[in-house]
């Protein structure tokens, strides 16, 4: 394989990587915010709201991301939703991620021992203070591994956006593959790059977990 090819395609690959990182970061941020909001709303003592949110979560988790993406991209305009390709991709990633993040947050909230809440109640802490000072910090520490895992899953879903022509890395690599007739080598290079990226994020996640739980370990 010719290294000069990669030099020639350097700018478009770099821009593809930029779009990939943008979609990943923005999609994950949207997913975390939506997921957290859903998890909070599910704690309200309003049964119809709980059923509705539960149903939405099940629908998103029970269907392929690609179908959701098509629904948003092709079906969106039919219900008046017209977005450019990158925002569509980010929105799709955000909605997809929100269902999983909501479940992660829910499990995290459930893992907070009731005794810690009772101690706060007995001291007269308000519901808001209990939520933000006790429940949320304890929950966040417990879910670091699950959050890292979900971030990795989302990073891998970004390549699916190439199907609706979002100019992310995979899309650029495919154009390059088509033009150079060196399809296998270019895709292999992409695979190796992704492998490296995911390993890196996984390692950072483990380091973050060690740091976040340092205080839980006896000396």
């Amino acid at each position: 394989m010719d290294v000069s090819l990669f030099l020639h395609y350097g700018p478009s690959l770099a821009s593809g990587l930029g779009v990939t990182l943008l979609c990943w970061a923005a999609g994950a941020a949207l997913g975390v915010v939506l997921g957290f909001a859903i998890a909070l709303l599910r704690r309200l003592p309003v049964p119809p709201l709980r059923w509705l949110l539960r149903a939405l979560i099940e629908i998103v988790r029970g269907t392929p991301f690609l179908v959701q993406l098509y629904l948003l991209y092709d079906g969106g305009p039919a219900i008046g939703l017209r977005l450019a390709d990158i925002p569509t991709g980010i929105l799709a990633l955000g909605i997809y991620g929100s269902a999983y993040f909501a479940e992660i947050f829910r499990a995290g909230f459930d893992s907070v021992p009731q005794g810690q809440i009772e101690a706060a109640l007995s001291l007269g802490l308000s519901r808001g203070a209990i939520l933000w000072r006790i429940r949320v910090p304890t929950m966040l520490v417990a879910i670091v591994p699950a959050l890292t895992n979900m971030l990795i899953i989302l990073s891998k879903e970004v390549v699916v956006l190439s199907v609706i022509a979002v100019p992310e890395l995979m899309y650029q690599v495919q154009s390059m593959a088509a033009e150079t007739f060196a399809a296998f080598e270019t895709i292999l290079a992409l695979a190796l790059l992704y492998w490296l990226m995911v390993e890196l994020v996984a390692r950072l996640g483990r380091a973050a977990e060690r740091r976040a739980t340092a205080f839980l370990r006896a000396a």
Partner: protein
Amino acid sequence: MTDVAMVEMRGVAKTFGALQVLRDIDLTVQTSEVVCLIGPSGSGKSTLLRCINFLEPYDAGEVRIEGRLIGYTETSPRRPMPHHALQKMRRAIGMVFQHFNLWPHMTALENVAEALVRVRGFSRTDATGRARAMLARVGLAEKEKSYPARLSGGQQQRVAIARSLAMEPRLMLFDEPTSALDPELVGEVLQVMRDLAAEGMTMIVVTHEMGFAASVADRIAFLDHGRIVASGSPRAVLHESEEPRVRQFLQTYHERNSF
């Protein structure tokens, strides 16, 4: 004010599903009194204690703290009390739990200071100062930067006591405070409680430590199957009671603790 009891329970009852865990509880605790609740496990001691600060909502009867009904409005029919009103009443009632329930993500100092900032509205600096003094009082001044996971059970329980005391409660509830501790750590916690009783704190203590009950309590109430079946001075309950359930309980206790 002096003639109003610190705690007054009248006809309190509580069921969990089909199980009646408390029936017709009458109990009055005066200011500066120390009352120990004893009895077999499952007799309802902890539930009774938790009704006093309404962590456990009671179904019938009344619990009054310094004359004020807790958990419900004074209207008829009564409704649950608004959360902020309940919160306000709970500030006067400290509680210490069997499993300490320290917040694991905060240091000892932060555990004690948190409610001072959030509930009492202290500045961070003032709260930290008060928290330091409280930790010193329970003998843990040098542990202020430690997270709960780095403290022994006895130390954690003393931090939990300091956390409650910092709020300047007029009543302290102890729910089996030494039951989760290794035997050699029980003494340090009981000593803190003895000091507190000597200073005149009103205390209600659920405990299996008969020695503590005999020497510190002004009064002992013995529960069995959700009822107070005997109550009186430690001497009257522990040595002179003719009640067969009390005698049976004490006999089992002595057999288990002699060797």
